[in-house]
C-alpha cells in the first residue's frame, strides 16, 4: 500500500491526530449502527490505511473490512472540508478504494448508487479495470446460488425453502408479495425489459419470473438473479401492479438478502 500512495498522501497520513472531526461529520456514520464495520468511520479508515501503509500486516478480514468501509461512502466531501490538519481525505478514499477493489475480493456494495461517483470519475480512473469489480460482485452472488448454474435443467419443486418464503412475506419490504397472481404486468411495464430485443437472453429471469421463483420458495433463483442489479428502481412495476404487490420493494428485499447471504459465504 505504501508504494501505491503518493508522497503527499503518505505525509498526510502522518498528520492525522485521530481527532475524529471527520467521523463526527460523516454523512454515513449512522450506517455503523446497521453494518457494524468500524471502517465506515473516516477516522478509522485513516487508522487502517496508516497501518497498511507502514507495512503492518492487516489480516485478510481486516482488509476486507477496510474495503467495505472505504466503499460505504457517499463522497460528500464533508470529512475533507472539516479536517483540521488539511488532509485531502476524498483523494485518499478514491485512491485506496480503487486499489482495494482491484485486488480480487468481491465488494458487494459496488452494486448500488454508491458507485455513481465512480461512474462520474470513470475517465479519471487511470488504474485497473473499470468493470472488474462490478462483474466480480455479480459473479460472487450468483456463484453462491446453485440453481443459477443449472441453466437447462428441469427443476424439482421440492424441497422449497419455506423459511425463505415466509421470511419475505413477513419482511417490511416484501410484505404480502405472495398475493401476486402472475399477470406479468411488472415485466410488461419495466423500462429495462423494454430496452432489449431479447430481454431474457440479456437479463436472465425477468421481474415476473423472479416473483414466481420467490413464490415457489426457490431462494437461489430469487436472490441469484442478475436482473436484481439491473433494476432502475423507477417503481413503474410497483405502481402498475393490479394486486398492489410492492414489486420494486420486493426486489430491494431480494437484493438485501442476496448481499447478506453472499457476505456470509465468501
Amino acid at each position, binding site marked *: 500500500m505504501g508504494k501505491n500512495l503518493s508522497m503527499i498522501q503518505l505525509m498526510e497520513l502522518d498528520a492525522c491526530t485521530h481527532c475524529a472531526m471527520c467521523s463526527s461529520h460523516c454523512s454515513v456514520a449512522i450506517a455503523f449502527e*446497521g453494518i457494524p464495520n468500524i471502517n465506515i468511520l473516516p477516522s478509522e479508515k485513516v487508522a487502517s490505511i496508516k497501518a497498511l501503509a507502514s507495512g503492518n500486516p492487516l489480516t485478510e478480514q481486516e482488509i476486507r473490512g477496510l474495503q467495505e468501509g472505504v466503499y460505504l461512502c457517499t463522497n460528500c466531501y464533508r470529512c475533507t472540508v472539516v479536517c483540521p490538519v488539511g488532509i485531502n481525505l476524498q483523494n485518499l478514499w478514491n485512491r485506496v478504494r480503487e486499489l482495494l477493489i482491484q485486488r480480487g475480493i468481491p465488494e458487494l456494495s459496488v452494486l448500488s*448508487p454508491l458507485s455513481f461517483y465512480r*461512474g462520474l470519475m470513470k475517465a479519471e480512473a487511470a488504474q485497473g479495470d473499470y468493470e472488474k469489480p462490478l462483474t466480480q460482485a455479480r459473479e460472487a452472488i450468483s456463484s453462491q446460488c446453485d440453481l443459477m448454474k443449472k441453466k437447462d435443467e428441469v427443476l424439482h419443486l421440492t424441497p422449497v425453502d419455506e423459511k425463505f418464503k415466509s421470511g419475505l412475506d413477513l419482511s417490511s419490504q416484501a410484505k404480502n408479495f405472495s398475493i401476486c397472481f402472475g399477470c406479468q404486468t411488472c415485466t410488461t411495464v419495466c423500462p429495462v425489459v423494454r430496452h432489449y430485443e431479447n430481454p431474457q437472453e440479456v437479463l436472465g429471469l425477468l421481474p415476473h419470473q423472479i416473483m414466481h421463483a420467490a413464490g415457489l420458495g426457490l431462494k437461489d433463483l430469487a436472490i441469484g438473479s442478475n436482473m436484481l442489479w439491473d433494476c432502475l428502481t423507477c417503481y413503474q412495476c410497483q405502481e402498475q401492479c393490479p394486486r398492489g404487490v410492492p414489486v420494486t420493494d420486493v426486489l430491494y428485499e431480494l437484493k438485501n438478502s442476496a448481499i447478506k447471504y453472499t457476505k456470509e459465504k465468501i
Partner: protein
Amino acid sequence: MMKYALFLGCQIPIRLQQYETSSRAVLERLGVELMDIGEFNCCGYPLRNIDFKTFLLASARNLALAETKKLNVMTLCQCCYGSLKKADFLLKENLSLRKEVNAVLQQEDISYEGKIEIKHLLSVLDQEVGIEAIRKKIEKPFQGLKIAAHYGCHALRPSQIVRFDDPGNPSIFERLVNVTGAKSIGWLMRLECCGAPLLGSHDELSTEMTLKKLNNGRESGANYLCTACTYCQIQFDTVQQMILSRQGSNPPLPSLLYPQLLGLSMGIPPEPLGLKMNKIPIREIGS
C-alpha cells in the same frame, strides 16, 4: 411564514451547488424561510440496495433531527424525497419498527414520533407558495421557450407513499414551468427514468436510458430539459457531456434546474442561479 428545514443531501454541496444557490435565491423572493440543520446525514437512498435497516436508520435520523426543531423538511433531490417519505411512512404506521429505530436514535437523545412532514421543492412552490403568488413575481416572462419538463421517478412513485401528484398524469411541473412564460411541451417519455440509479454499476444501460430521454425531448421540439432532482440533473448535464465526448453525434439538449428557469423569469441575475456551473452551456435565455 413558511419555514422548512432544507435537506440538501450528499451530492448538491459538492457536485451541484447551483441547485442550492438557485433554490435559495427564488425561495427568498417568495417568502419561504429555510433553516439549515448541519447534522443532517445521507437520506439513505444509496444504502437501500445493501441493507434495509441501515437505510431506515439513516433516513430516520434526519426525520428525528427535523422533529427536534419542529420543522417540516423540504428536499431538493427527488431521490432524497422518495427515501425520506418511505421512512416517514413506515415509521408512522409501524409502531414496532419505530421503537426499534428510536432505540438506536436515543443514543443521541433524539427520536422520531411522526410529527413532521416531508415536502419536495416543487410541492412547496405549487401548494404552499401557490402559482398566483409566483406569477406576481415574474418580471421577465419567457417568450417562445419550449421546455421538456422531466418528472423523474422517485417523487412520483410509488404514489401511495410519496403522494406527490397523479402518478399517471401529473401536472405540477407543467404548471410551474408555464407560470414562467415558457411553454411546457408534451413528450412521450416525460415520466420515464433518467438512468442515474445504474450509473457506476451498469453504465451502458444507464446512459442508454438517458439518451432515449434526450432524443425524445429533442424530437418533441424542446429547447431545454428541465429537472427538479439532483441525480437527474447530473445525469442530463454532466453525464450527457460525458456521452457526447465519446459519441458526439447529436447536438446536446441542455438541461437546467427548475429554480434556474424560475429565477431567470423572476429577474434574478444569472450568478446566484449558478448558470455557469452547468456543464452543457445554458445560453442566455431571456424574453
